[in-house]
């Protein structure tokens, strides 16, 4: 690893000032960033440790009955937090499915959302890869079994985060703090340019920090689930995952992971039909077909459509019958 300066920011203002200096990067658990630095997939001359800032590692109740999660909360602490498990079990399950015990002890929520793609063309430095300075996507005609089945830009990356999929199904909003103040994005907006942006998947400016993720009270409780299909029995990224929630007001969200450049919410007309309920097997099969009608799998990943439809059917059975 190249030499870097390490700073532990004393407060948010200092962290933001340091992040505004050239080649500065925020570091939390380091589980992705240090690999990227060791592999020369990114550069940094200054690492700003953003753990330990006020409220960055806490779970706080909000006025609308929801929860605000600090950006430096450890993934393990999300999986084990009693308030999160009670109100947002889909998120707790998604967090518990991340990596291994040690990785969950290290990794932070903000870092999990800001991690880079696992695409092997990116990680191996394929020169034609958009995200490595090229102009295309070698996965389209190459080895693409782990890539996206949904077209969302030139690159066929999938985002590896499990929590992001659950957060999308819970209408979570991400608070980014930068020199100009705070802005909030929903998960869809955070990853809207993941397949187009050469420098990153999440729309976080170099001088911004994920300070909070806010879960709305309207989606606390109800029926929630997170299911993840992996190639191995443990310690793996999702081939396909599915987060689903039916809120107390009856509204339904169903989101797939592993199929697109970011969490991929099924068409709202499908969610509305599930919300109406009283679904039988035949209508569940039809809805699972309809949800995937416009996907465009590549030569090696049509199997993901089969898995996604199986996960959708299970989610709809749990939410809509």
């Amino acid at each position, binding site marked *: 690893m190249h030499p870097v300066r390490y700073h532990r920011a004393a407060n948010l203002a200092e962290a933001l000032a340091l992040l505004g200096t050239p080649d500065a990067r925020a570091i939390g658990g380091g589980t992705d960033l240090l*690999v990227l630095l060791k592999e020369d997939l990114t550069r940094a001359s200054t690492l700003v440790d953003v753990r330990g800032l006020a409220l960055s590692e806490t779970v706080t109740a909000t006025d609308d009955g929801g929860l605000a999660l600090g950006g430096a909360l450890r993934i393990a602490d999300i999986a084990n937090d009693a308030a999160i498990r009670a109100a947002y079990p889909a998120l707790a399950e998604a967090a518990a499915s991340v990596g291994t015990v*040690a990785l969950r002890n290290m990794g932070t929520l903000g870092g999990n959302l800001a991690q880079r793609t696992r695409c092997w063309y990116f990680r191996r430095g394929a020169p034609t890869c958009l995200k490595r300075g090229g102009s295309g996507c070698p996965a389209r005609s190459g080895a693409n079994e782990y890539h996206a089945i949904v077209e969302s830009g030139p690159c066929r990356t999938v985002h590896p985060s499990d929590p992001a999929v659950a957060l999308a199904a819970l209408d979570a909003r991400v608070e980014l703090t930068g020199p100009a103040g705070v802005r909030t994005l929903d998960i869809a907006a955070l990853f809207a340019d993941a397949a187009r942006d050469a420098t990153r998947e999440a729309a976080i400016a170099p001088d911004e920090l994920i300070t909070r993720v806010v879960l709305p009270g309207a989606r606390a409780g109800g029926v929630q689930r997170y299911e993840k299909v992996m190639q191995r029995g443990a310690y793996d990224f999702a081939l396909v995952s599915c987060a689903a929630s039916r809120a107390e007001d009856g509204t339904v969200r169903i989101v797939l992971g592993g199929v697109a450049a970011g969490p991929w919410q099924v068409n709202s007309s499908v969610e509305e039909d599930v919300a109406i309920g009283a679904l039988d097997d035949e209508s569940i099969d039809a809805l699972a077909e309809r949800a995937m009608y416009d996907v465009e799998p590549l030569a090696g990943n049509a199997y993901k459509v089969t898995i996604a439809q199986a996960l959708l059917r299970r989610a709809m059975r749990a939410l809509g019958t």
Partner: protein
Amino acid sequence: MRLTINGRPWEGDPAGETTLLGLLRDDLELTGTKLSCDRGECGACTVQLDGRTVHACLTLAHGCDGQAVRTVEGLAGPEGALNDLQAAFIAHDAAQCGFCTPGQLMAADALLAANPRPSDEEIRAWMAGNLCRCGTYPNILTAIRAVAEARSRG
């Protein structure tokens, strides 16, 4: 920066890019903790930081300022007497080449501290991040189960 390493205080100022693994092995000559993949994929460098397992290869030394580090060298008692977990790994033949063993021990030690009577399924899930290319997994499972049972009998 200050650390407590296996109960002893340490103070120093390593370079910013120094990992906890580099500090332990190269500066402090605590070479029980192994360098293998260097990418957080294999678990050979597993140590405990304030009681929780981490990969020392992906942990910056400065990021641990003020914390307590426990390595495999911290398991044995005074005079180097092996603890019950180490003895069980030997008794149940839970190592072949032994390179992954320090990480396996630190992960297993943390498991038994968090969950004194884990089921086999819980042991497998917890230990999933510690790879063994010799394939001694069944014997590692047996050794951990044996220690849990022996400790519960007191």
